[in-house]
């Protein structure tokens, strides 16, 4: 199905995976200029002009109740209504992002909505920052230079062939069952060749295969990253959507949203995510509808830190 599609370079996938792994809070601007309901459009203009920004959230006891953008300001200016309250011109229903969301969700949000900035809120729904594309670009450049430094260091001290260190990212496309399983096979071989006990290899294979099939069967596409060192295998899966509405439901054995065709292939029995959790020593999942899902599974290679559920 993906024949003819050119796979991006491993290094570019690695950078994507790295920035996808960042939290919004680590990338956003924490210094936010916000106005209260009784401020005027003229106040907003001054703020925008002095700070060269294009959107100002409107807050009521730290909660975001609206946002005034350059567009709203121009509309008010045209009508000569600069002394109006912001509430008259702001956009009321604001799409916010949560500060602890992975950056990949924000990237999906920028793709989905045409907004140029998103107010970022904490768990109490209070405004804590603002995220623009410029923030993401900066994060990307930062991660790129870090990656480059790492590659230079690696060039100076190339890892030994039997070394257990590996960072690899695979890109997966929707309904590409043809290639689902490829990543897991490669990783399995890698671990087997390095004499990792078969039971541990199998746990890694189960987690990785289920995540791979999930990406292929349920997401619109995404990536699966492996970060392996002497102590553990860290598998992370990021996708661009559609996102899971109810995570508890998705974690329940037997629950599945798979269609008939997927089921006829022997998948979609609602065992995927529970299987991943069962074989993992550490497991985390996050999802937001319209933005994507992130799963992280860690399996220890050290026999002393065994998974107690096994």
């Amino acid at each position, binding site marked *: 199905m993906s024949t003819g599609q050119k796979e991006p370079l491993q290094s570019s996938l690695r950078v994507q995976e790295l920035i996808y792994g960042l939290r919004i809070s680590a990338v956003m601007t924490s210094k936010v200029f916000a106005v209260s309901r009784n401020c005027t459009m003229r106040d907003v203009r001054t703020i925008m002009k002095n700070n060269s920004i294009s959107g100002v959230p409107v807050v009521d006891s730290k909660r975001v109740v609206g946002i005034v953008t350059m567009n709203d300001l121009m509309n008010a200016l045209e009508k000569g209504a600069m002394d109006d309250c912001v509430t008259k011109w702001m956009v009321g229903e604001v799409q916010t992002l949560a500060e602890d969301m992975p950056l990949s969700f924000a990237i999906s949000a920028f793709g989905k909505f045409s907004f140029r900035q998103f107010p970022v809120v904490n768990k109490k729904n209070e405004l804590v920052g603002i995220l623009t594309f410029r923030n993401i670009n900066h994060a990307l450049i930062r991660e790129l230079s870090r990656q480059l430094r790492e590659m230079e260091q690696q060039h100076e001290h190339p890892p030994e062939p039997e070394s257990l260190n590996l960072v690899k990212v695979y890109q997966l496309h929707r309904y590409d069952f*043809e290639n689902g399983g490829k990543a897991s096979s490669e990783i399995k071989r890698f671990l087997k060749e390095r004499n990792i006990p078969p039971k541990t290899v*199998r746990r890694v*294979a*189960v987690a990785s*295969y*289920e995540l791979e099939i999930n990406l292929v069967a349920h997401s619109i596409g995404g990536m699966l990253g492996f970060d392996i060192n002497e102590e553990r295998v860290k598998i992370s899966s990021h996708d661009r959507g559609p996102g899971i509405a109810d995570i508890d439901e998705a974690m329940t054995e037997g629950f599945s949203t798979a269609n008939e065709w997927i089921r006829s292939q*022997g*998948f979609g*029995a609602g065992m*995927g995510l529970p299987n991943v959790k069962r074989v993992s020593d550490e497991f985390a999942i996050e999802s937001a509808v319209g933005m994507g899902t992130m799963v992280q599974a860690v399996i220890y290679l050290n026999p002393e830190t065994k998974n107690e559920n096994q």
Partner: protein
Amino acid sequence: MKISELETLDDFTCLQDEYEDAEISAGYTSDLLSDVMANAEDGSVLITIQAHKNTVAVSSLAGVSAIIICNNRPASDDMLAAAEKEGIAVFQTARNQFQTSALIARYLGE
């Protein structure tokens, strides 16, 4: 029993015979690949009607060394090619999963 002994059973056709003739230690009957992935033992024979490439992927990851396709379901060419690459034997039989399981269980002394 050894994998090669499956070839001698009535109604069994070997579709992929590039395999290492290992001892079969257990059997697992399922058409749900996630279930196979989670529960099939290493060195077992898989009894199923799922005759496509992903069955081979799951078998390889779970350590299944032979696949028996029931009800004479046709196996796709890419499935057999993948099985050859992985060294997993593939058989086809007219029997259903229940009959096949019962037969293999007798040989395994279960």
